[in-house]
């Protein structure tokens, strides 16, 4: 609490100083140096990423085929929606696209919220002092460290109905009598994918939150403890508000990844329509069907969906991107 008031007084003084003439030029100088500081990252990013992205936008408006991208003709928005003819064509008229959207949103909402809760618990655990903390911190990261192409196949075998460890353990613990056909039955296979994903990515969330926890000054807790705040109150009043910015960023990047999930689902359930994701859908058009136009259109739609979700996070989390640190 003391820290917050202190910064407040300080920033008020700072704001006052910004209004006199000499400091205005200081502000301009600082803005110029700000752009200089951002420039290397921006230039690097734009020079590598701008072309592929613009190109995807462009191809989404053409009938390009992966076999001969050079011979593309401009066809307007037909890849998105084309009402001409007996059927409506285009990604938005494809029931599979909408199924993929539902699947992806369900998958992302479930995995990200589970990861947030579990990641928070793990982070709080690792924030404690106890023997073996070093080992646990390292062990915790292992799921994130195994390449997805391997861990997905590994889970595939662990979910095997006859010989998989998952069924074996569940049966030994007495939870099931008959082996479950995890990756076979659509109702179960979405859960199989979710379990594998949560296992794999909880470490990401946990580590981000742990870093945020580590940045909270210890004396804040001390004073709260002296004021008689319970553990729950301390968590709710100090920890959560202070790690919120890091938590939202972690949530954004996890959600971005979850919304674009592909390889895990592909390995576990292949091209089953019951679990197809929007990225899987785009890949199917782009690579398997050679339909570069349609695939690009689907990718642009993925982009729009992801961007929409990211912006709503920022809105709901009341994150002010223009905010400047330390001067609240």
């Amino acid at each position, binding site marked *: 609490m003391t820290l917050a008031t202190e910064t407040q007084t300080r920033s008020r003084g700072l704001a006052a100083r910004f209004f006199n003439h000499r400091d205005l030029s200081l502000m301009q100088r600082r803005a110029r140096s700000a752009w200089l500081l951002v420039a290397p990252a921006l230039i690097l990013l734009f020079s590598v990423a701008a072309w592929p992205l613009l190109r995807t936008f462009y191809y989404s408006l053409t009938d390009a085929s992966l076999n001969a991208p050079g011979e593309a003709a401009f066809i307007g928005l037909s890849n998105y929606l084309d009402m001409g003819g007996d059927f409506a064509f285009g990604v938005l008229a494809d029931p599979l696209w909408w199924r993929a959207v539902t699947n992806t949103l369900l998958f992302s909402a479930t995995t990200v919220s589970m990861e947030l809760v579990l990641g928070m618990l793990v982070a709080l655990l690792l924030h404690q002092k106890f023997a073996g903390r070093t080992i646990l911190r390292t062990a915790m990261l292992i799921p994130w460290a195994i390449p997805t*192409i391997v861990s997905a196949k590994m889970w595939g075998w662990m979910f095997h109905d006859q010989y998989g460890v998952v069924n074996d353990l569940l049966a030994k613990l007495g939870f099931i009598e008959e082996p479950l056909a995890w990756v076979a039955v659509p109702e179960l296979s979405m859960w199989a994918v979710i379990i594998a994903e949560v296992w794999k990515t909880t470490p990401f969330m946990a580590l981000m939150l742990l870093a945020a926890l580590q940045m909270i000054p210890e004396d804040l807790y001390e004073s709260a403890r002296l004021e008689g705040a319970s553990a729950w109150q301390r968590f709710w009043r100090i920890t959560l508000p202070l790690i919120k910015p890091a938590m939202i960023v972690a949530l954004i*990047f996890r959600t971005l990844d979850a919304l674009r999930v592909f390889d895990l689902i592909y390995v576990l359930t292949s091209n089953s329509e019951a679990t197809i994701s929007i990225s899987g859908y785009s890949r199917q058009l782009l690579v398997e069907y050679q339909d*570069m136009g349609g695939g690009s259109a689907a990718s642009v739609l993925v982009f729009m969906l992801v961007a929409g979700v990211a912006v709503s996070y920022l809105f709901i989390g009341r994150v002010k991107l223009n905010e400047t640190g330390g001067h609240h």
Partner: protein
Amino acid sequence: MSFTPAPRWHKLLGRTGLYLAAVVVFVVSVFPFYYAFLTSLRSGQDLFTPSYLPEVFDWSNYVSVLSDTGIARSLFNSFAVATLTVGGCLLVSITASFALARIQFRGKGTLLLTILCFSMFPQVAVLSGMFELIRLFGLYDNLGALILSYLTFSLPFTVWVLTTFMRSLPGDLEEAGIMDGASLWVTITRIYAPLLAPAMITTGLLAFIGAWNEFMFALTFVISPENRTVPVAISMLQGASRFELPWANIMASSVLATLPIIVLVLIFQRRIVSGLTSGAVKG
């Protein structure tokens, strides 16, 4: 305000709960890896039956992976690519995040959003365009191609995370620096970077693992065995026939691919706990 200490048994219960939770987290995290390790020690028919303890220690899968497939070379490549990617990212991100977090200027919000936009496309969509770019730069079949393309997903991540953490640092730091007449660069590297150590290590580790495990770009932009990275090398392991998956070899390589990361985390994880708690700053 008086602080009533909890009764002894209460504390004991808390400790027990803590260790119980630690054991659960440990088992859940490590079990599949342990299982992979078990599998890597078995062969042929054994693979099809579940087992929880090693019956034999047969290291032949490791020998064959190390001698036949050049996985050692791939490990080195992955290491080089991931290190350079993360190093470059952190270098340009730390200055960018300072500007984005602590300097008031117009267009900042838009800038942050634009940077984020680059990681909103499905990877497969940018693959063709990236391939053209790589060939334009003459980097096909070159590790440089991987470093360059990995920037597209690593850089937005490091910039955003560091900006967030940079913002959470107390405001008086740079006041002190500026009043001392120190340049921005010195302010950033001498005052901020050390304070951000936990965040930088965390971000670096996560980005490193991301680059280490990337598959699609690595498969497409590199063709010769001597430039191959680990995930691609694993995907090329062949069984005796087309459908057969050389499971034991794949598991042995995966264990080998994960070990360097474990070592890295062991080395760096101590630094995650430094930072503000170690008292570098007086508020």
